[in-house]
């Protein structure tokens, strides 16, 4: 059997039905890098990751999906070919968050973290109010200009996700059934429209 040629779905079904060691080895070969990467990136919210913590949390995530005779995996609903990877990302992320809830960072680090979190780009409150008012005005203006378009809410959401919350065009294209190019074209059109008629 050429395990590497199997799709994710075929592989998971083999693992659950036959439970052959080779299938599970391929499962680990294929999915461990994804789980470890999500674990490492999520750990960064609290502390720089280290090898033993990542290894421990990857194993916790594996235990979580295999508990109760693979209850979580058996109950998984396949929406599309890559959806199992999405499921593993969510499980891995939750394992890390559970870990830090159970073993919180020291108080000092936590306070620093909080300060850092809120301090990013923080501005005086009065200035903030002015900016919020400006953004509200811009949104209303764009909404009025786009009102006749079929997907104007979507276009406006894309504009805000990109310019206000710093998502990339690629990330936005993962949220909608759109290509990166389509997202970028919408962003360019809207920013030109906003500058010409709203700002």
């Amino acid at each position: 059997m050429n395990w590497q040629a199997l799709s994710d779905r075929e592989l998971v079904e083999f693992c659950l039905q036959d439970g052959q060691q080779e299938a599970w080895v391929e499962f680990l070969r294929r999915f461990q890098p994804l789980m470890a990467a999500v674990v490492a990136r999520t750990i960064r919210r609290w502390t720089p990751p280290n090898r033993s913590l990542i290894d421990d949390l990857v194993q916790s995530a594996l235990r979580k999906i295999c508990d109760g005779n693979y209850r979580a995996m058996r109950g998984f609903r396949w929406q599309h070919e890559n959806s199992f990877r999405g499921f593993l990302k969510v499980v891995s992320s939750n394992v890390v968050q559970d870990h830090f809830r159970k073993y919180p960072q020291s108080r000092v680090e936590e306070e620093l973290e909080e300060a850092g979190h809120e301090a990013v780009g923080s501005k005086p409150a009065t200035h903030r109010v002015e900016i919020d008012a400006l953004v509200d005005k811009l949104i209303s203006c764009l909404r009025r200009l786009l009102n006749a378009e079929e997907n104007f809410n979507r276009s406006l959401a894309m504009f805000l996700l990109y310019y206000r919350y710093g998502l990339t065009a690629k990330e936005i294209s993962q949220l909608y059934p759109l290509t990166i190019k389509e997202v970028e074209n919408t962003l360019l059109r809207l920013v030109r429209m906003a500058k010409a008629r709203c700002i």
Partner: protein
Amino acid sequence: MEAVRSVNQATDHLSDAQIEAQVTGLSPDPAAQERLDAHLADCATCLERLLAAERTHLRLLEGDGMKRDPYPGCPTEETLQELAAGICAPETAESATEHAAHCSHCGPLLGQYLKEFTDEPQAEDAPILRQLKTSEFQWQKKYARRHLTVEKAKSPRWFGGFWPKLVAAAAGFAVAVGLTLFLRRPDDLHRAQELVASAYGERRTIEMRLTAVPYAPYAPLPMERTADANSGLAYQRPSLLKAGAAVGDRIQASSNLDPHWLQVKGRVALLGAGPGSAQEAQRDLEKAQSEGVTDASLKIDLAASYFEAASNDDHPDFLAAINLLRSAVDDPKTSREDRLVALFDLAVVYQKSKMFDLAVKTWEQYLQLDPSGKWADEARKRLDSAQKALPSREGHTISNLQASFFF
């Protein structure tokens, strides 16, 4: 092309001054603006640069960090996680995204999850991820043996004693064989696809990797072959002969091959690796594409045919292969396995084109996503060879290659 050239003669790209002028509203005359827009329509790099500049210019709009607590109407954090992971229920996804765009709690949180869930390797984590115990093959093998076995349901004891069990087993076997023969009549197309995959495993005559094929070391056919050698080689590849015969049968049955059969025919020609095979494969695969097959697998096959055809050319041009492979890699609909294949092939093409810096980066990206197995071993060897080629090839960096080559 002439219009595009006039954007910037030196690099074919917008200059920083042109980007700045666009951002600050100092638009050129209408004709120049039209040329600039035409360039932006074609050039992903310049469009990305312009948008990034616009974002910097509009930084006033940026949110002021994340509001820690959710508002009463916010979706659950689980919904945002699933949205970022691409597994949110479709009926919820659009409304949750639109909510996040307007919410100072959910917007930043969604952004954070998207960054944590990205499939793109992060340079800062790469060294540590390579050294994990859980990424070692031996550890994985041991863990699978010890912890990952499926409990099989125990069958009820319907019959006691040896003979009744034997009779029941024999009857069950006969029924199973009958049912299998009845229910699993081979689907001709599927069988032909399997034969092509086996043919690839018999002898990998092309450098490129195709989708859903087993690993085989690259073993090109000799350049000059006698008739005897040719027929000898054919007999060493029975699956390829059978796949060719299956296509022949199909053509006999219907002169108009459907696009999936055209893809099989193209693959057979590609693996045949004779004179003109790549061009024949190209024709079949382009026809399959024009008739509606647009998935990554076809793009990769077509890229392989362009690559093979260009490789035999005195002045090889790999641009078409690069563009197809990049589009397969970037397409969010491409499955993870197909994306790996496209990435592998992209690195091969970069290396063949002597763009060693790009080849190195692409091999590293590939190995992040697929760190073990035979394909990974080959990738590592190729990476090593690309790295060795780097110092003596300093002239061939991205910066001084014709930028239009990439886009």
